Each structure stands twice: as C-alpha cells, then as structure tokens.
C-alpha cells in the first residue's frame, strides 16, 4: 500500500518535471457522423473539444455507444472528422491527404484494438513486425526490435507461434508489442480489458502504467471500472451520447 502511494507521488513529480504542459493532441469542436444523408445515419460524437498533454494517462469513460471508440479513432487518425479540427503536435490532421495521415499513424501512435486484430495464420513475431514492413528499415533491425519488445513482455518464447494458438492474455501482449514496435509517442487502447479476466486486466493496466512512466502518453477508451478508477490516471473524460459530459484532471 505504501509502495503504491509512493509510486503515485513519484509519478506526479516525474510528470511535472517533464514539462507536463506540452500539448500532444487538441480536438476543437470535433463531430463525427457515420453514413451522412443515409437512412442509417449515426452521429457518433458531437462538438467535442479536448486537450491531451504529452505524458498524460487519459481514460475516455462511458457506456457502450457513448462515442469513446469513435473519438479514439479520430485521435488516432483512423478516420476523419465530419466537422472540427484535430491537432497532433500542433498540426491540423483533419484535412491531410491519406498518406500523411498514415505516416502520422505509423510514427506517432500505437493502437491496441478491442479485438486485438492480430492477423491469423501469421506468427507472433511477424504480427509485431508488420507496422514497420512498409518502411526502409532493415528486416534484421526490425526483427531485433520486435524480439526485444516481446522479451520485455514475456512472450518471446512464443514468437514463432501462430497467433490464433495463443491465449487471450498472450494475444493481448502481442497486440501491445505490435503497438510499441514503431516507438510511438502515444499508445491508444480501445476497450483493452473487454475480453480479459480480472488478473489479465490488472496485468494490462500495469503494463500501460509502466509505459506511461517511461514517458508515453496513454489514451484508453473503457467502461471498465478496473481501468478508470485507477488513481494514477491524469485525466478522466466522461462521455455520453457522443458528448463530453465532464473532464476530471487529477
């Protein structure tokens, strides 16, 4: 218990020392409508303005359908907003051509999907290396980097296994490894504990905390109290019906 409190205090000091006021992501009146003008038109988020600083641990909290996954996707440059601006390191990405969005996605973000979205039939190692395939990095360098990350997450011994043969917790670690291969500035996770038991969920949160302590910005969309009730979270963004209800900075 004392260790936990000390750790949290240490983190707070650490974050302040790092110049916590560097803004990484800014959304200005961002809205997203799926299938506009169609009978199945859906307003996922409406008029969301948010600031996320470098090194923060942010949780987007809300029930299913609150828009947190959509907001995460917009922040992660997976889709474009219907209205509004999104600034990543001061650069408006909403109107960028697709290849620049992809470059930002590759360089700035590591994404952990709710379903993990690992490619079946492909080995653990290859899945982790995939984000760097379309770069000019040497295959040997990518492989070394991937093996280093897998070792850190205690899954290196299964590097040649096909991912569908892994357990849920193992797949989760592979997904995290893949998100880290490109040394991103921010790690985005969409409902990462949705398919995990309590122990595995705690493992995941611990890994996220460690990454945050290393300086990475963590943004998690989750409705799991195991996630959003953690004391080391810097910012809790509460969403409902596509609107930000409350932002609690700790």
């Amino acid at each position, binding site marked *: 218990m004392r260790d936990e409190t000390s750790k949290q205090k240490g983190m707070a000091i650490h974050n302040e020392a790092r110049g916590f006021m560097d803004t990484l992501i800014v959304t200005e009146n961002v809205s997203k409508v*799926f299938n506009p003008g169609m009978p199945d038109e859906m307003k996922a988020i409406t008029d969301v303005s948010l600031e996320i600083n470098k090194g923060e641990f942010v949780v987007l909290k809300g029930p299913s359908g609150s828009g947190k996954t*959509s907001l995460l*996707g917009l922040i992660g440059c*997976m*889709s*474009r907003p219907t209205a509004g601006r999104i600034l990543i390191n001061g650069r408006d990405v909403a109107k960028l051509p*697709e*290849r620049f969005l*992809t*470059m930002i*996605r*590759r360089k700035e973000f590591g*994404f952990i*999907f709710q379903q993990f*979205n690992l*490619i*079946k*039939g*492909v080995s653990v190692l*290859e899945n982790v290396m*995939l*984000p*760097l*395939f*379309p*770069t*000019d*990095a*040497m*295959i040997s360098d990518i492989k070394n980097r991937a093996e280093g990350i897998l070792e850190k997450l205690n899954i290196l011994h299964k590097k040649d296994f096909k991912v569908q043969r892994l357990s849920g917790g193992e797949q989760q670690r592979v997904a995290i490894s*893949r998100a880290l291969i*490109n040394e991103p500035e921010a790690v985005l996770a969409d409902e990462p504990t949705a398919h995990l038991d309590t122990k595995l969920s705690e493992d995941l949160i611990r890994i996220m905390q460690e990454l945050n302590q290393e300086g990475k910005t963590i943004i998690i969309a989750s409705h799991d109290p195991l996630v959003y009730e953690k004391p080391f979270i810097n910012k809790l963004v509460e969403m409902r019906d596509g609107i930000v209800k409350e932002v609690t900075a700790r």
Partner: protein
Amino acid sequence: MERHKKILEYTLSSLFRRRYKNLALIAVFGIVVTVLSSILFLTHSLKSEALYVLDGSPELIVQKVSGGRNDLIPLDYMRRIQVIPGIGHVVPRYWGYYYDSLTGGNYTILGIDQDVKELKLLDGRVPTGNGECALGKGVSDARFAGIGGELVLTDSRGMAVSSRVVGVFTSESDLLANDLILINKDEVRSLFGMPPDKATDLDVGVYNTSEVSNIAQKIKRLLPDTRPITKNEIIRTYDTVFNWRSGMILTMFFGAIIAFCILAWDKATGLSADEKQEIGILKAIGWETSDILEMKFWEGVIISLTAFLTGIIIAYAHVYFFGAFLLAPALMGWSVLFPPFRLMPYLDLYQITVLLFLTVIPYVASTIIPAWKSAITDPDVIMRG
C-alpha cells in the same frame, strides 16, 4: 528497395496462408493457358513446317483435271507449255499415294531420276535402279525395314513388288519425308499402272518468279483442262485451313475462356471478410494505400505468372513431346494417320506475348481493383465491418 522486399515477403506468406484457394486458381488459369497455347503452338508449328516444305517445292505445278478431280497429265502437254515465254523448265513428276493395309498408313511414293546422286537428310544412298528404295523414317519404323531390309508393296495388278532398302531419311526431315518412299520413276509407273505417255503432274520452272501468276494464266488459257497451282496459292491455302481450324477450336473453347474470366472476376472481386479485415488492420497499423495495392499487385502477378508459365510449359510438352494428342484429331484431320511424325518446336514470341497480355494483365487488374476500394476506405470503417 528494402520496403518492396518486405512487402513482397509478406505477400508470399499471405499467398501461402490461402494456398488451397490460390492453387485452385492457378490450376484453372493454367488449364486455360495450356489449351490456348497448345492451339497456338500446334497451328504455328504445322504452318511453319508446311512453309519450310514449300520453300523447296516448285514455283508452279500443272495438273490435269477431269470431272473436277485430278487426272494423269499427258506428257505431250510439256511440249506445249515449254513454248510459253518465261518458262525455264518443264519436268514430269511421277508420284502417288499408297495405302498400306498392313500398317493402316498412307505413304507417298515418289519416282526419282537416276541422275539424282545424293540427297541431304538421307542415310545410306539414293536408289539407282529398279528394285531399290529409300524410305522415310516413319515408313521404315512402321514396316521394320531398315537399310538392307526389304519392302514389299502391292501393285495395281495385285502383284507383290519387292524393293531393297538402300536409304532411310533422317529424323530431321520428318515432315518432308516421314511417309515417303523413293523409287525409280519407272517403278512408280508400273506400281500405279500409269500409261507410258502420262505423268502425275508437271513441275514448271519460271525465270522470273514475279511472273508466275501470269504464266499460270497463260497455261490455263492454252490448256483449259489443266490446273496450274502456284506456290503462293498453296501457302494461302495452308494459312486459311489452319486459321479456320484453329478458329474453330478457339470458338469451341471460347466458352472455357468466358467461364475462366467469370471465375477469376468472381474470386478477385469478392474480397472475403478476412481479406477486408486484413486490409483494414494493415491500414490501421500504418500501411498506406499504395502499400496495400503493391501487395495485391504482387499477389496477382505471382498467381497469374505461375499459372501462365505452367500452362505454357505443359502446352509445350503436350504438343512437342506427346504429339498434341488432345488437339491433333481436330486440327490435323485426316493427316492423323500412321506414320506419325514429330513436330519441330517453334515458339512465336509475339503470340506468347499476346497471350500474356490477354491473361496475366486482366487478372492482375481484377485483383488490384477490388482491393483498391477497401484500401482507400478509412481503416475505422473497414474494421467496424
């Protein structure tokens, strides 16, 4: 370069993951290419062989026609043709077809002059008198008669005529001489019961080959019951026959081509849910649209080129090693009788290139285009399904 290598490597592993589907595609694609290229090889080889044969044939052959059919030509016609200006030589030819009931083969029996001393492509020697013959390889094999052996034929009176084999044509001369029997021209007349004042046809030489058609017309006017045949007419006939027959075959297989196109389009356009998901994931983790399309390009090229090359190789073997047994009866017609002969391999790069463009490129396009639709969609949309 490194990037392209890695994308290619991933493509190969992706193809291996869906190996059963891809093998089926390669098999179907390959069969169609095999059939199409077999037709092209066979018709091209036959035409080329025929043209090679015709290269050494007379510029003008004069036959007598009676009731619309060939008849023996009187030797007196030589004298009348010889006076036409521009005529070089007029030589009677003695030859005919002989059906051998023993082997079921049709042979060509050609009479030669005694002053022919040697022939290229002949092992042994030219027959110099009665009772000697030279055989084509096909005849020699069919009748088990090599140099020093005996060949017995039945003449027009039903009498057996025996000849000693003094020469056998080499295998390089298959189309020219495979079914040929060379004997003294007097023996030809006696074998077929030809009157002494008649010949099979006349070999007419002209000084100026560009005047062949004019001279042929003059001969026709002078001798209305004759049929002058120029070398060019024969070449055109071969062309027409093979083009017609190959066209017939192509028409028959047009249905197969259409079916293949439908299959390829169906397979390529209907990206499976797995494939769409994979594209979405790759985009989400940082692959650009151009990377996805490059991957699909390699996928299309590998499958189609593999199928194309396999089809070409099988077609080559089918035509040149196995005698085109699937197509020969339709394309070669009556000539598919003993003795068989081996076609000389001919490869027309132009035709192969055309076939390549007609098969590989459309397939690659039908692989890339549906993938393009998924590749340009936001990964968020694809992954939501």
